[in-house]
């Protein structure tokens, strides 16, 4: 673990699963809409690549819809997840492509996020066992706050490549602060840092999510959430294949 200070022992009567639920709740309601910009930084690129998108999410229904709005070349490219399937529609060639489950962990739109990170095919609650490792009195990057350190260990049958994920969750409001992803050999492969925490509709919401693959030097992807609406009124018609091909 990267944190410098030693962890304090976990307090009595606190369940790891409850903390994980609060972290999930801090980021998502039952139906959530968000509009965001994703910035991809890579040594290959002279200028960062920016992708703007909107995301409609139905957590209980395990459905998700994404529409790309920029750059112009990718505008109106859409993604629809109806558990366990994922489709992508490419307007320029007018084709819908089913993305097989084995491709869930491939890069999404050339970023350091995976398809799974975006469409949340795996469930941070149902696909993992949760263990409370302790309390970090001074989490890296959020030194004024205290955070529970929770280890997520995927179930055998979960479609997840990680050996485990260690998540720092702020004690008072349940905001996730940081996530470290380890492979099955115990090597740390990537790091997600949450920032710009603001109060939105009573939630303490991190507006920026920065993903860094640790095996690819100089690569980094940051998602900045411009707008988020919790408990949004989202029509069921959003989560249909017809909506894939509908233009703005």
């Amino acid at each position, binding site marked *: 673990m990267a944190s410098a200070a030693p962890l304090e022992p976990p307090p009595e009567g606190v369940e790891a699963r409850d903390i994980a639920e609060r972290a999930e709740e801090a980021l998502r309601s039952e139906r959530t809409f968000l509009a965001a910009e994703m910035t*991809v930084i*890579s040594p*290959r*690129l002279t200028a960062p*690549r920016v992708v703007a998108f909107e995301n409609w999410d139905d957590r209980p229904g395990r459905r998700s819809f994404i529409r790309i709005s920029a750059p112009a*070349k*990718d505008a109106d*490219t859409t993604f629809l997840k109806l558990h366990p399937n994922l489709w*992508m529609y*490419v307007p*320029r*060639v007018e*084709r819908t*492509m*089913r*993305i*097989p489950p*084995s*491709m869930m962990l491939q*890069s999404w*739109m*050339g*970023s350091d996020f995976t398809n799974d990170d975006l469409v949340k095919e795996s469930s941070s609650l149902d696909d993992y066992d949760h263990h409370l490792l302790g309390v970090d009195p001074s989490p890296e990057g959020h030194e004024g706050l205290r955070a529970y350190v929770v280890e997520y260990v995927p179930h055998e049958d979960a479609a997840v490549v990680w050996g485990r994920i260690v998540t720092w969750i702020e004690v008072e409001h349940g905001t996730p602060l940081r996530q470290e992803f380890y492979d099955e050999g115990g090597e740390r492969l990537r790091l997600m840092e949450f920032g710009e925490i603001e109060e939105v509709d009573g939630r303490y919401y991190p507006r920026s999510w920065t993903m860094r693959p640790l095996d690819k030097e100089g690569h980094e992807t940051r998602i900045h959430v411009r707008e988020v609406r919790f408990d949004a009124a989202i029509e069921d018609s959003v989560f249909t294949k017809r909506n894939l091909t509908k233009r703005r």
Partner: protein
Amino acid sequence: MAWRNVWRNPRRTALTVAATVFAVVLVMVAVAMGAGTHEKMIEDTVRVNAGHVQVSGPGYRAKRTLEQYLHFDDEVVRRLVRAEGAIGVAPRITSFGLLSQDSATRGVAVVGVDPLREGSVTTLPGRVREGRFLAPEGFREILLGGRLARILSAGVGDEVLLYSIAYSMESAYELFRVVGILKLPEATMDRSLAVISLGDAQEFFVYGDRVSEIAILADDSDSVPVLASAVQRAVGERPAEVHTWRESMPELEQLILLDDAGMYVMLAVLVVVVGFGILNTILMAVLERKREFGVVLALGLKPRAIFTIVYLESLLLALVGLVIGLAIALPLILYLQAHPIALAGDAVEAMELFGIEPQATWKLKPLNPLGSVLTILGVAIVAALYPAAKASRARPVEALRSL
């Protein structure tokens, strides 16, 4: 005197010489067959894969992503084509993508090849089972492995969607027209290989004049080390790594080493047997001539002189055998080298499937005659020691008494 002695018993002499001739011919032909078979295996395997020598961007062999590349510009081509021992040069781009037709999608290995150059290194153009190979001026044409085509229910003439991430980190998607279905020996490849033209690949992956690797075919697997250093010189200061088939196909080298080991054990047994044959013939001769040796010893000849005479006789026989053996083996091997023997039987189909021509082939390498001759000469030298010593130890009194 030794020379005259040799001709006193022609049948015995002929036997010893025949044993040596037999050994020389057998060893040389077997070694040449080993060399020929291995040459054929290497040749046929590199023509399925990536040639004898590959140049790639630094780190490509380990990672195989678009991040490892080298520039394939006119100057590199000109230098590589002229590299000593090179008879074919073929650039390629390898990456990964999703290929989709209707509701079926598969993850595929996307390979971009130069339609004009590919055939100079690999047999890929000859593996089209249906349709045709990529046309030099073709635009967004794609070849699919047979099993891949079946999984996607795609046939010649269909349009398939290829999706990947370009070098520029953008999503890349394009429709390609299926122009041919390939028959690939390896099931995994047949299920996952999609081939497009180098130009289309460079455009699709926004890759400029970059390529992943350049495959080079040598005129002969023996010239690979020379070719490898010529290639190294040709790429000069550019960041690149040069590999030979030994590094890119270590299993093949292992197989050849194992096969060689088996052959050498067999030949060692053969040589020892021949050695005992020579020893036996000479020893018999010595025993027969016991009286003779007794007499000459009694006349005052030194035992050392008898040793020398017997020893020289044995070596003479060996030399005669070696010369005759060489005279038979060399033309025989050269003939077999020029006229490989086609194999028949169950193994043939399997070999053909793996792209290996079912033939027994021979190849004469410079070290073969030298090694074989020296080995058998060495055996003769050792084998003659005992009879010669035995002869020199004959006691005059005993020898004469047995008259």
